[in-house]
């Protein structure tokens, strides 16, 4: 070994650093998924061993030298039934087990904190409710359920965090969600795993898991000064949404106070829960989502608001928990000429704006 070339040695050292055969388990779901994974590895190994051992031992026992005349056997219903039913049973176990995990990964708990992710060629844009923006990075606290609400503004992307064992496509035109609860502080890979064009392989980033305290510090230090909801409020004002969506008795649109999470009856007769997906649709394709009792007069905002804008609006609507807030926006809109309203509007509502810790909807 002493004669090993320094160049090769250098490579070996480089390769062996961080070399792993199995990814770290850094989320609550990871050990659960790995249990199933190793169960399946075990079953596969047993199956493979059986096949290989049988092939080898038959090859030895029944090769032509030792066993010159083959014994013709038609088959054996019992044996065949065995190797039909046992694999089927095992596969069904895997199916049920897998389905349980699948539903767990894609059913966020009610108290999860929400972070928005917008995928575009070729970067991940992360929007925290507190107004923190990140590109190709995602900071999350440990020990808190985090829900990612994702959308793509161009092609299919797929957000993958191998250490958390979660992955979900960000698709154009529709929100998808995934959630996780990080358990170990550290920095992990973030990949786009759905081929999305030229720089697909550069659409990577880091997921930084921090202790709750560090996370709070990080939030405070990287805020842009304006929360997502405040941003949305400004948009709400500049798009004159409040001209219809207000609390006046003659309002042409329904009041949006407390609308998030409420069950709405639509003019088409159907009922719907006003979640993020519904709110997005109602902004971009309003006439198909008219609340009962209102005329279909809302114009579409498709092409006028970016995906981030829609997210800000939704975040704003989510925080409208009283008519007072709507009024507040209304007043600011009335008070200020359009365009100039940015900073003062922000200030005006700063007092009402939810603090970072109030992000979770009770």
């Amino acid at each position, binding site marked *: 070994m002493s004669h090993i070339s320094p160049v090769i040695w250098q490579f070996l050292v480089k390769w062996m650093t961080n070399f792993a055969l199995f990814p770290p388990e850094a989320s609550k779901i990871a050990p659960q998924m790995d249990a199933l994974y190793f169960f399946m590895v075990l079953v596969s190994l047993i199956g493979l061993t059986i096949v290989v051992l049988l092939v080898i031992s038959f090859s030895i026992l029944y090769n032509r030298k030792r066993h010159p005349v083959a014994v013709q056997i038609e088959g054996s219903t019992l044996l065949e039934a065995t190797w039909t039913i046992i694999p089927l049973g095992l596969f069904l176990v895997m199916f049920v087990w897998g389905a349980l995990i699948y539903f767990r990964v894609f059913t966020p708990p009610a108290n999860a904190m929400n972070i928005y992710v917008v995928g575009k060629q070729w970067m991940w844009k992360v929007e925290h409710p507190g107004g923190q923006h990140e590109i190709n990075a995602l900071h999350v606290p440990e020990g808190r359920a985090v829900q990612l609400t994702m959308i793509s503004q161009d092609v299919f992307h797929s957000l993958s965090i191998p250490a958390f064992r979660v992955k979900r496509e960000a698709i154009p035109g529709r929100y998808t969600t995934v959630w996780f609860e990080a358990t170990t502080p550290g920095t992990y890979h973030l990949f786009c795993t759905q081929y999305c064009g030229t720089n697909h392989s550069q659409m990577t980033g880091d997921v930084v898991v921090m202790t709750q305290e560090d996370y709070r510090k990080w939030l405070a230090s990287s805020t842009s000064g304006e929360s997502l909801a405040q941003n949305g409020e400004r948009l709400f004002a500049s798009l004159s949404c409040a001209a219809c969506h207000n609390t006046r008795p003659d309002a042409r649109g329904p009041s949006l106070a407390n609308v998030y999470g409420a069950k709405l009856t639509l003019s088409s007769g159907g009922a719907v829960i006003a979640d993020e997906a519904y709110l997005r649709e109602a902004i971009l394709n309003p006439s198909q989502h008219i609340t009962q009792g209102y005329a279909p*007069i809302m114009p579409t905002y498709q092409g006028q608001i970016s995906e981030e804008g829609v997210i800000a609006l939704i975040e704003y609507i989510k925080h409208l928990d009283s008519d007072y807030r709507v009024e507040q926006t209304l007043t600011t809109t009335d008070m200020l000429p359009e365009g100039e309203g940015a900073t003062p509007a922000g200030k005006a509502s700063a007092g009402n704006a939810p603090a970072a810790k109030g992000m979770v909807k009770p």
Partner: protein
Amino acid sequence: MQDSAVVAQGARNAAAMADHAHGGHPTYLLHHFNSVEQQADASSFAMWLFLLTEVMFFGGMFVVYLIYRNWYYPAFVAGSRQLNVALGGINSALLITSSFTMTLAVWNARMRRKGGMILCLVLTFALGAVFLGVKGAEYKEKFEKHHVPGEHYSLQSFLNPDSDPAAAGTRPLPLDEARHTELFFSLYFAMTGMHALHMIIGMGLMAYILFRARGGAYTAGHTAFVEYFGMYWHFVDIVWIFLFPLLYLINRH
């Protein structure tokens, strides 16, 4: 090396093969078939299978149609209203009639009536041509009204129905719904376009059949090719039978 048992038991067939070699079978029997029945069964089965692939081909588009029609029903209604039921109905009648004349062409071929067969085929061809002409006129109208999906697609007829006689009196669509009419027309052009392409291919084949039929090619007992072409033509008819109500007649009351 042919083993003896096979030789012994194949004697019957060997005789059949010798028979074949001596021209004991009709000339249209291809060398690798043993009998006319086998050839007829095999080729008709093949034709059916081919038509089933066509079913799956158009079937794919019908799946797309089904989904979007349910998603964007108002847009599909408005889009459908832009289509001319009269022209569509006439086209249905034309195609059904051509299908009828096609069956008669096959019947004439089987009865070995060359004149009748050619007449029926010419009629079929003419009806097909008129169908395509009507279709062309409809396409032209869509083109002029900028209802062809793409950059120049115009929403005027849906946003201001009164500006367009075809839509006059209907409720104007909000912008977001009006935009989805483009999907309707995308499907309209994709489906009718693929249908028209099949008709054009069919008419090319028909021209070939007519060319050969003058020499009596199909009226001497071997009608298979005309029959299979007839099946293809009927299939094209069936596609239209579905396209007509699905595209032209959405919510017409």
